[in-house]
């Protein structure tokens, strides 16, 4: 049984899959291609780097199907201006104008700089980019990003590459409750069950990279993630049984109404 019309819409574009795949750290480009295919990911992230002028490497783009939306991240940017520079370069490549704003000035934890992320989002939206900002879950920042014109908000579950899951669960739940644009949980998801958990909470999508790229069998776990995302989404749509209101044993409060 499938749920009709439960598509993910970002910036007017609709997607069937709510699983986004990052393309970093794969052992081979073939493994990447297989993972994209196995998970049916319709959005993948890539980064921009100086080409290695001494080696003639194949471009990763050749391994990404043409119908997949490229989300170019601004990794390497330590502030809003650098993010803007990278975004302009990305757009020039002709692969679209979807940018994942990733402004990180912390090489120990790779935590995003929320303040610079807001500035970068403002700058990029003004130049017509479709901006998907990566951030530390914070309601004020999320509201500023919405006001700046972000297409989604991408709060981290736990630090990049840590595979620790939804350590920021309560804060993400607040964003899901209060923010109207799509919430894509990004970073730190280490197991399909964690992706399912994020979807059950009401997240609109998840993005996974390390857990797939560095797995023993990336293709298989990519498929597992995709299925977990679907399961979590179905559970959310069906409405989870509400937590029972548990009465603590204490003196009755409403006896007076029935005397």
């Amino acid at each position, binding site marked *: 049984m499938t749920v009709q019309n439960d598509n993910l819409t970002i910036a007017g574009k609709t997607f069937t899959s709510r699983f986004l795949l*990052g393309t*970093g750290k794969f052992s081979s480009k073939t493994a990447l291609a297989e993972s994209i295919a196995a998970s049916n990911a319709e959005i993948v*992230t*890539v*980064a921009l780097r100086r*080409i290695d002028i001494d080696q003639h490497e194949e471009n990763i783009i050749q391994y990404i199907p043409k119908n997949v939306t490229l989300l170019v991240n601004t990794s390497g940017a330590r502030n809003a201006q650098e993010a803007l520079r990278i975004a302009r370069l990305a757009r020039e*490549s002709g692969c679209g104008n979807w940018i994942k704003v990733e402004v990180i000035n912390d090489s120990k934890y790779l935590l995003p700089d929320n303040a610079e992320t807001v500035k970068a989002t403002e700058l990029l939206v003004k130049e017509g980019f479709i901006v998907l900002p990566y951030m530390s879950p914070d309601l004020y920042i999320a509201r500023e990003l919405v006001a700046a014109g972000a297409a989604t908000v991408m709060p981290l579950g736990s630090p990049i590459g840590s595979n620790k899951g939804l350590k920021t669960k309560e804060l993400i739940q607040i964003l899901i409750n209060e923010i109207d644009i799509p919430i894509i949980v990004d970073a730190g998801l280490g197991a399909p069950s964690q992706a399912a958990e994020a979807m059950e909470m009401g997240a609109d999508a998840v*993005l996974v990279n390390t857990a797939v790229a560095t797995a023993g069998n990336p293709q298989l776990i990519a498929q597992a993630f995709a299925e977990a995302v679907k399961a979590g989404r179905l559970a959310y749509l069906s409405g989870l049984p509400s937590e029972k209101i548990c009465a603590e044993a204490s003196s009755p409060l409403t006896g007076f109404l029935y005397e």
Partner: protein
Amino acid sequence: MFRYLKLRNKKMNVTLNGKPKDISDRTTLETIIRGHCQSPEHVVAELNGSIIGRSFWESTTLKENDRLELVSFVGGG
């Protein structure tokens, strides 16, 4: 005669992706890019801080001390 020969073989120094490089005088962007990149169709060129669109690669020649950045996509999260 001697002076004419010298002009024809003039080299110049530019910075390519952060590294110093000697290239011939009047090398175009098109030439450099094709010479160093396997898939030029996905390469983006930034010369002295400005993005140069691919339609201008043929007509843009490099000068002494130019800073050229050639970037393209790689895997990333």
